[in-house]
């Protein structure tokens, strides 16, 4: 049952898998317009809601697929990584990251 134990893969095999995942990630983000600092910043002037549309469509899609795969017994939900919650680092880090995002254009 997924997720798979990847420890049997060689360094190069595992590397290529993550390279492929990363490549797809970068490709999709650029296709959506996230390669443009101006387009990213436009979200915060409410000119262009692409960032929110892409992010939340992505999160909802992945959340549903993960939940369904778990319900069908295809994916062991206890074995996937869930970010632990640290409230104040999330609050302060989030606020600072958002400010840096606007100042730098990510």
């Amino acid at each position, binding site marked *: 049952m997924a997720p798979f134990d990847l420890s049997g893969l060689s360094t190069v095999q595992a590397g290529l898998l993550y390279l492929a995942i*990363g490549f797809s990630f970068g490709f999709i983000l650029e296709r959506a317009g996230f390669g443009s600092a101006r387009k990213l910043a436009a979200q915060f002037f409410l000119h262009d809601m692409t960032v929110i549309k892409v992010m939340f469509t992505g999160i909802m899609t992945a959340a549903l697929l993960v939940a369904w795969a778990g319900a069908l017994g295809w994916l062991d939900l206890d074995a996937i990584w869930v970010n632990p919650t*640290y409230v104040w680092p999330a609050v302060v880090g989030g606020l600072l990251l958002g400010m840096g995002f606007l100042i730098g254009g990510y």
Partner: protein
Amino acid sequence: MKPQAASPYVNPYIAGLALGVLLFVAFFLTGHGLGASGGLQRIEAAAIKVVAPDHVDRTSQYAAVAGGTRNPLDHWLVWSVIGVALGGFVSGWRAGRAKVEIQKGPHISRPARLVFAFLGGSLVGFAARMARGCTSGQALSGGSVLSVGSWIFMMCVFAGAYALAFPLQRLWR
């Protein structure tokens, strides 16, 4: 030769759907989502280790990934972040968008834009370590497995950026 016009971006809902499927595939195959800032931190730690190995061993966040005999580059996040750069470039290149430019608002000079990019980037780097992740590792990945901390983080990112948008609107408009 006339430069070809860049292709338009894809519909954001289609892109979001593709992103969600990819995120699911990542969880399904590997047990964790996507990441970016962690990979950059490891590359940074490897660079610092070349010039100042003592500093790496003394600083807990670097020591954790690169202290002693640890190789900071021997990690999935490093492969992933290299893939992101390649994938982004290939996408932009195939769509006719790959060019050297400094994107900025109309009322700001190029040197000022670069200074702000450096300041903002430094702040983002610092904040991503404090929050243990960025928009990829926390907001997208943690968000889709419903981590409470990731959702708090995500809302705070938007709050921080919207709070500065009005006072710093000259940066972008």
